[in-house]
């Protein structure tokens, strides 16, 4: 009786990893999925916070992919370990603070550890040569295989035919001829293959799955590191960077202003850790004050906060300010006009 070979597939929740896993399953390989949670993933929590994301399906795309494929999915919390990838990427950043090549190496290495611990035989990845500007360049494909330690146990079924044969191909666990030769940035071959398999409603592809690829998010993270004087973060830090408007009017503090009711509710969970303010004479958002603010700073913060309330055109808005120790006081302030808030205050 021939051996049942087993592969662990990196499942991001996007189309490429769905198709890559499916390609290998078609050859009789037992496949289980693995998905890594870094804290920077766009899906998952974003739809829970912002109304504007509610048109998207309320689902975790990696789980959805696993269910479409009929495979198990193991979601691994790598928040702590991932810090070193973000803070000190050996291969540097992409256009923003996205350490895509280091990220790929790290995830394949983690998958390799899992593969060895579970007695699986090889790793499947949905990479396509030329699909992404940094991590999926042809020249970087061997870098990922080598630096992760996976070497020729890393199979990229979507472009395998234009890469050197891997161990599963050489040993006949996989038929190389049945694998694919996708190449370049076009998504059309993947979409055609998805149609062929009958996959519909898959997550829209490429580029939007990680906050670190977002220019504005990266700017806020840079500001956080600069203000603290060290490149470090915890989960709450990176979650809060996803929520609200962030304004830094003075070096010592910044404001996080809820943009809608659901963001206000989310920020509510953090208010005990921050000096916070809310308008009481008019409707308006909850505002967290991150940093140290003197009396002048507090008044400036209140005037900015009042600007985002329904009293923005009123002569005076009453703000209720609560300290970290729970003491409450009221400040009557004149809201700043839009022109009085310089664009550079916005992070």
């Amino acid at each position, binding site marked *: 009786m021939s051996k049942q070979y087993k592969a662990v597939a990196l499942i991001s929740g996007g189309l490429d990893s769905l198709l890559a896993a499916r390609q290998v399953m078609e050859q009789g390989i037992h496949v289980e999925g693995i998905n890594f949670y870094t804290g920077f993933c766009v899906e998952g929590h974003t739809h829970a916070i912002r109304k504007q994301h509610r048109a998207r399906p309320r689902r975790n795309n990696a789980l959805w992919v*696993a269910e479409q494929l009929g*495979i198990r999915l193991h*979601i691994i919390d790598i928040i702590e370990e991932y810090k070193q990838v973000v803070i000190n990427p050996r291969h540097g950043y992409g256009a923003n603070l996205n350490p895509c090549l280091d990220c790929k190496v790290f995830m394949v290495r983690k998958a390799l550890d899992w593969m060895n611990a579970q007695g699986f035989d090889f790793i499947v990845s949905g990479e396509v040569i030329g699909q992404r500007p940094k991590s999926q360049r042809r020249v970087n494909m061997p870098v990922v295989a080598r630096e992760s330690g996976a070497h020729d146990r890393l199979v990229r079924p979507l472009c395998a035919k234009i890469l050197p044969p891997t161990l599963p191909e050489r040993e006949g666990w996989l038929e190389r001829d049945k694998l694919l030769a996708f190449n370049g940035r076009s998504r059309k071959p993947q979409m055609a293959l998805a149609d062929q398999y009958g996959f519909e409603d898959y997550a829209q592809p490429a580029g939007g799955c990680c906050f670190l690829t977002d220019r504005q998010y990266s700017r806020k993270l840079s500001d956080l590191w600069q203000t603290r004087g060290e490149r470090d973060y915890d989960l709450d830090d990176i*979650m809060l960077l996803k929520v609200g408007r962030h304004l830094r009017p003075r070096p010592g503090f910044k404001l996080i202003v809820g943009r809608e009711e659901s963001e206000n509710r989310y920020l509510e969970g953090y208010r005990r850790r921050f000096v916070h303010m809310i308008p009481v004479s008019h409707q308006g958002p909850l505002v967290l004050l991150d940093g140290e603010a003197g009396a002048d700073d507090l008044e400036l913060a209140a005037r900015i906060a009042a600007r985002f309330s329904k009293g923005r055109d009123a002569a005076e808005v009453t703000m209720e300010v609560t300290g970290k120790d729970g003491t409450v006081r009221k400040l009557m302030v004149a809201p700043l006009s839009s022109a009085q808030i310089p664009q550079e205050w916005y992070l």
Partner: protein
Amino acid sequence: MSSVNVDARYLLCPLPVIRTQDQAAGLRPGDCMRVLCTDPGVLHDIPCWCRIHGHTVADISRQGDEIAITIRVGDGGAIPAGSVDVSDV
């Protein structure tokens, strides 16, 4: 049979799924987990996770912002999709 609670309140998906998954790893078929959550995303994600791992969602209830999902641990075989209707929760 044992029954355990998982407190995943104030965590956003997929962390409630991860906490549930990690707890389930130490349980045996027939054991129960009651997962407390506040992210409405769990109404989709936890039943989906249960389906692909062969666990059963025995009950879902909601009180204010809190959602309680009771899961009976399966023996590893997958169960049909859509065994619990969460549309009215």
